[in-house]
């Protein structure tokens, strides 16, 4: 933590002359510049190219029309369903991941006993973080094709469980976001000095009350950071969508119960729409793929911006909060 370090004198600008450097060092310095600039150029070219293609093809009616299966691109409709799918999946996945993740982080930092179990849980979260999403997706398929979980998706006449639905996909998506929420919340909890907790205990608060009234409000920016990062990951994931969401172009409800039929139904998201409309998928609608990819990129950019704002704002706020 940087807060503990004493005030450092600010380093002045480059007063050193390159002419005294050995030529190997000069080459190395040039390579550093090239790598740094290349990263900027790569990011700028991706953004500008997607913006160029996106602005070329995105039309208001494209965003609000429902897609149709027509092979003729002038009549294949818009991307309303994929946009809605991305929104629902992201919100549901986050809604599942955040409470779970915050509870796990609280337990790990504030209780964490028996120590062996805490180590196990910690490595379990690490394992989830490292697991490829395609593996999570097909694990979800076995899990939700168990007959006792059949009520979460469509069951065929013969009793076979389809295993693909919005709710199943969001459960697996929540596993993608979970490590990010746990990590950010733990980081926040660890950065709260011990004397804050002790002050609360000294006032006669129980540990539970301290968590609820002191720690949770203090780590709210960290939780928000983890949440926004997790939302970005969920919105950008394709593998779970094409395997667990059923990958139907339209949102297809199952059954009659309102809302629940959408949750147990199938659908698509922007990522699966881009994949299916690229040459790798079935459709060859590049314009639509570019437009959907542009919308997706905007979503991710906004989430990224939110993270930057929270992190930037909370650093100053937090160091003031505890050192007053």
């Amino acid at each position, binding site marked *: 933590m940087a807060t503990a370090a004493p005030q450092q004198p600010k380093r002045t600008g*480059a007063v*050193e002359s390159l002419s005294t450097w050995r030529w190997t*060092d000069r080459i190395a*310095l040039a390579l*550093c*510049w090239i*790598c*740094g600039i*290349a*990263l*900027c150029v*790569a*990011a700028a070219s991706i953004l500008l190219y997607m913006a160029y293609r996106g602005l070329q093809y995105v039309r208001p009616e494209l965003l609000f029309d429902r897609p149709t299966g027509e092979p003729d691109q002038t009549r294949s409709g818009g991307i309303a369903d994929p946009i809605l799918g991305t929104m629902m999946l992201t919100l549901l996945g986050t809604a599942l991941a955040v409470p*779970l993740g915050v*509870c*796990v982080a609280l*337990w790990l930092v*504030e*209780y964490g006993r028996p120590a062996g179990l*805490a180590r*196990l*849980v910690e490595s*379990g979260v690490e*394992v*989830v973080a*490292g*697991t*490829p*999403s*395609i*593996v999570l997706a*097909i*694990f979800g398929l*076995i*899990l939700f094709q168990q007959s006792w979980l059949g009520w979460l998706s469509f069951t065929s006449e013969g009793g076979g469980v389809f295993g693909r639905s919005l709710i199943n996909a969001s459960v697996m998506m929540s*596993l993608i976001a979970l490590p990010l929420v746990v990590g950010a919340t733990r980081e926040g909890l660890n950065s709260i000095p011990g004397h804050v907790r002790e002050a609360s205990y000294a006032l006669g608060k*129980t*540990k*539970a009350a301290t968590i609820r009234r002191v720690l949770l409000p203090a780590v709210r920016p960290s939780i928000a950071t983890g949440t926004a990062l997790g939302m970005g990951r969920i*919105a*950008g*994931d*394709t*593998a779970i969508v094409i*395997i667990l969401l059923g990958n139907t172009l339209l949102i297809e409800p199952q059954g009659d119960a309102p809302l629940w039929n959408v949750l147990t139904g199938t659908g698509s998201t922007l*990522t699966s729409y*881009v*994949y299916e409309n*690229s*040459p*790798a998928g079935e459709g060859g609608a590049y314009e639509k*793929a*570019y437009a959907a*990819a542009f919308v997706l*990129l905007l979503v*991710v*950019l906004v*989430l*990224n911006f939110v993270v*930057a704002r929270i992190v930037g704002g909370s650093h100053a706020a937090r160091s003031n909060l505890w050192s007053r």
Partner: protein
Amino acid sequence: MAAGAPTSSRPMAALASLREPWSDRRTEFALGAVACFVLAIVVGMVVFVFSKAWPSFTENGLAWFGDTGNVNQQLDRIQQPGTAEPVYEFGAFDLIWGTVLTTGAAVGFGIVFATLAAVFIVEFAPPVIERILTPTVSLLAAVPSVIYGLIGILVLAPFIGGLVSDDRKESVAGIVSLTGENWTLAAFILALMIIPIMTAIIAQALRQVPRAWTEGAAALGVNRWRVMWTISVRAARPAVIAGAVLATARALGEAIMLAMVSGGSAFAPNPVDGITFFFEPTRPLAATIVFYREGLANPAMAATLYSIAAVLLVSAMALSIGAYIAKQPLKKYGIRT
């Protein structure tokens, strides 16, 4: 949960007691239960995937990892055996080689690039550029893989396809078709995807190298590059390794982008082929699952695909253990990553 039963008072009493302040023991128990639930899901995942994959491993034995013929034909036969007995014969060498090649090239290139970029961000970048670069790195890390794949398949692949001469295409006609989609392009885009992750990890460690060390070296008359290279990067070397290991895990699991740009045929590019080698298609392990996802309803095919998933899972677990071990020396210096 119990809201639908207003007639009985017990659920209502339980709900009311939930609103009272919780005791410490109860809180600890509840939070611990949630943590155990997450642990149970992880254990369940490993058990489920391995139990489903078991037939493929027992039928093939160690030949699973070997080269037992054309993988495309093997997978087709698993899908449609033509006999009543399910066929499990499968040797994933071509797929493993494709994974190793793309991941290895991407990580090998990425580790050098990311280290230099991190040094640039931390030490040499003028404040203006640094203020642009730091968010740029986190942005590049956040771009969804399907967008990288789309740019790869629609922009870069036709461009690279144009570079391949017709003579070269004819020289391998009948074996593979050389389009713009090949392992080099896959490795390049993969590198673009993992470099931001590695750069962020390395830059964070470089920033936490004790100031006294670098200033001590500078006071002895060492120039800024040498200070960075011999003191900071040396001290942060465990972070470089940890970053590389985490990036490897990410690259191994990348399925969608690789399925889009790697060429889609299970072929093992052969370095003996000279320049042609760089234009040869491949298909890594994770992308294979995406390719044959429709076959998951077929038990034999599912066993094969789950066995691929099991191999990926074990590799990812081994890599995260590796990253944990690699980071240990940093704790000695008090550098948190």
